[in-house]
């Protein structure tokens, strides 16, 4: 057990801290209700790339910082931004960009990666369909080839950000007669291509962060395919191994936990700090135990990653536990605020951390997160699917027989 870092990494940490100290005030708010990135967010992202705190290991020629991959440095960046409660940067899109880097043509890389990591080109992901939720590979949106174009017809759903995205990366069925995993292709196209209709999908939070997207004879040049025809399923999954942190990231949980501690110290009930309420305090401490276990589990996963090893079970459980933990923390925060915890900005109102309601805490973010985190428990592979995957892939339990069989783990 060696928790200290090499001098090089400690120096790097100091550098990150210095940067945050000097520039942190320029960052958009780290917590609260959030919409599409604005100019402030794009400026912040550019500054981060310039210093190597975003798009760090993406080659310079594609708009990144071009550093050698160093998982620990990436972790130090995430940790320091988290500890300082400053919004960190992004790498464009954590599914698309690694996919292009690995499987895109040189032309595709040059055209798309740089504007994407800068935040100038926004993408949406066309995977889910109404009839294929957990069973993603059963998707039915079709594309046939007509000359040098694909002609797409069908519908996507749960398309996050489609109402403001510039581009979509999309899975379509190009080989209708092949087995379901082998008939899919991975296409890229602009959202203003004729024949695309975006209908916002209002969610329980009151916001339209998702959309339905309808395709009617949408024509996309055949050059816009990533990988080969019929191999889209494998293109989409090839980069899953790159997904790090992501859903269930313990840094997020730790940040959220700190906010709750601050709330219990600062907020009062009948004039006494909430921390003095024993039943709430016991709930807090229970969650802290779970949060710490997941934090250290994350360090264990990181150590494996640094050595290039598969972490196995410690990694399999991150999403299931992390999303549930976040949801439980949101629930505690709401309970701590009591009646105040029900306050929520009027539906449709643009997110605004300086909301005029003086009683509102964090612009209503706790209620929003409570719902969003439930959405994450449901989406991205429901908790039920996660349990199937853990049971079957990590523990080696048999699949359900016959009719019940098929690929439950597909989402």
């Amino acid at each position, binding site marked *: 057990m060696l928790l200290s870092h090499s001098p090089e990494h400690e120096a790097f940490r100091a550098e990150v801290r210095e940067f945050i100290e000097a520039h942190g005030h320029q960052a958009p708010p780290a917590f609260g209700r959030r919409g599409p990135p604005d100019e402030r967010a794009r400026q912040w992202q550019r500054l981060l790339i310039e210093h190597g705190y975003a798009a760090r290991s993406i080659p310079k020629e594609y708009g990144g910082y071009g550093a050698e991959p160093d998982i620990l440095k990436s972790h130090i960046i995430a940790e320091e931004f988290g500890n300082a409660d400053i919004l960190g940067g992004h790498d464009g899109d954590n599914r698309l960009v690694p996919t292009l880097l690995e499987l895109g043509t040189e032309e595709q890389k040059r055209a798309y990666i740089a504007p994407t990591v800068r935040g100038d080109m926004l993408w949406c992901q066309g995977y*889910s369909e109404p009839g294929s*939720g*957990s*069973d993603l590979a059963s998707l039915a949106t079709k594309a046939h080839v007509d000359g040098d174009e694909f002609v797409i017809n069908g519908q996507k*759903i*749960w398309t996050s950000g489609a109402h403001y995205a510039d581009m979509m990366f999309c899975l379509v069925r190009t080989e209708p007669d092949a087995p379901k995993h082998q008939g899919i292709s991975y296409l890229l196209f602009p959202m203003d291509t004729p024949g695309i209709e975006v209908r916002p*999908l*209002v*969610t*329980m939070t*009151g916001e339209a962060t*998702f959309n339905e997207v309808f395709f009617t004879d949408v024509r996309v040049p055949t050059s816009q395919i990533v990988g080969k025809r019929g191999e889209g399923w494998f293109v989409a999954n090839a980069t899953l191994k790159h997904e790090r942190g992501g859903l269930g990231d313990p840094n997020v949980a730790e940040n959220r936990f700190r906010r709750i501690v601050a709330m219990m110290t600062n*907020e*009062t*009930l*009948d*004039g006494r700090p909430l921390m003095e*309420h024993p*039943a*709430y305090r016991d709930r807090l401490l229970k969650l802290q135990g779970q949060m710490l276990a997941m934090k250290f589990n994350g360090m264990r996963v990181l150590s494996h990653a640094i050595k290039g090893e598969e972490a196995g079970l410690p990694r399999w459980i991150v999403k299931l536990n992390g999303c549930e933990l976040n949801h439980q923390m949101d*629930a505690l925060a*709401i*309970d701590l*605020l*009591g*009646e*105040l*915890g*029900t*306050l*929520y*900005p*009027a*539906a449709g109102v643009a997110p605004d951390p300086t909301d005029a*309601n003086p*009683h509102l805490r964090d612009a209503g973010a706790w*209620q929003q997160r*409570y*719902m969003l985190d*439930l*959405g994450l*428990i*449901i*989406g991205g592979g*429901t*908790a*039920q699917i996660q*349990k*199937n995957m853990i049971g079957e892939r990590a523990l080696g339990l048999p699949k359900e027989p016959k*009719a*019940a069989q*098929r*690929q*439950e783990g597909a989402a």
Partner: protein
Amino acid sequence: MEFGLTEEQRLLQQSLAGFLAAACPLDRVRAAADAGDTRPSDIWDGLRDLGIHGALIPEAYGGVGLSLLDAAIIAECLGAAAAPVPFTATAVMAPAALLAAGSEAQREAWLPRMAAGDAVVAVAVTEHVGAREGAGVEAVAGRLRGKAMFVLDGAAAQACIVADTAGALHLVLGEHVEATALPTIDRTRAVTALQFDDTPAEPLPGAAGQGEALQATIDAGRVALAADTLGAAQAMFDKAVEYAKERRQFNRVIGSFQAVKHLCAEMAAALEPCRALVWYAAHAQQAIPDEARAMACHAKAHLGEAGRFIARTATEVHGGMGFTDLLGLHYWFKRIGWNRQMLGAPELVRQEAAAAQGWVAAP
């Protein structure tokens, strides 16, 4: 001995549920919520014709003179429909307060108007349950000072019954005090903040002393909120079971998967006993004084917990659809979340239940 509803109560339930099914479908809830209308006149007037506004008001004052158990049945129906109408304060707590502690003149002035649906009377007791941001109301020489938050049925109320920090109750006319709307997750019911600044008020003469009238008022409200959650949770559960029978994934109806089936069974196991608890707690408020306080607290706390579990699980069974606005499931989800916090979140009312049973000093 008969633990259950009478024939009359079942009829009340049926007629109210029938009315709401017609007058208050999802589209109507959505339209009212979008418009910020927490008292659409068509629904309000229809409820008047059914005698809902005066359910607890004695016939002598123009009401129907029903019991709190009847009020709980009504609350359950309203919760099941996520009906955007004032009820907990104006139809349950305010009548309870006026009947327990109001003067004859006050009763005569207000109860008939309330029964007729011509007046909404709000109730401001949140600070007695747990004060936030230092809020609270002092009574000095017949005038009120301070701030009351989370005033129930507070929008466009003709009057408000206000608890002061000593536990006495006062009647304040709506025209004498400005109400600020507090927008919450639940758009189907209104809460407001009231700022009192030497505001004229009329004491409810029977509410001096140990605060029994205030406590009974709060407990009646708690039972009503518990019943509302019962109805809302039942609605979510029913929708989830129905969805599990229809939705197909992996070439099967999802309800045939043990995982989904067991989620449904767990909801049923959590929800069904809630009904008996709410009935008993409502009945106890008038029939079993010794148990009234503890039972109101338990109904409120237990329904708060069971409601949260069912709201979450029913949403989960719906998968992504549950997360959208399309099925409108979230109106019930939010209503349950709102009920949980108003008049005391579970940890707080459990503490009160312990005190009511003499297991610990009053908080």
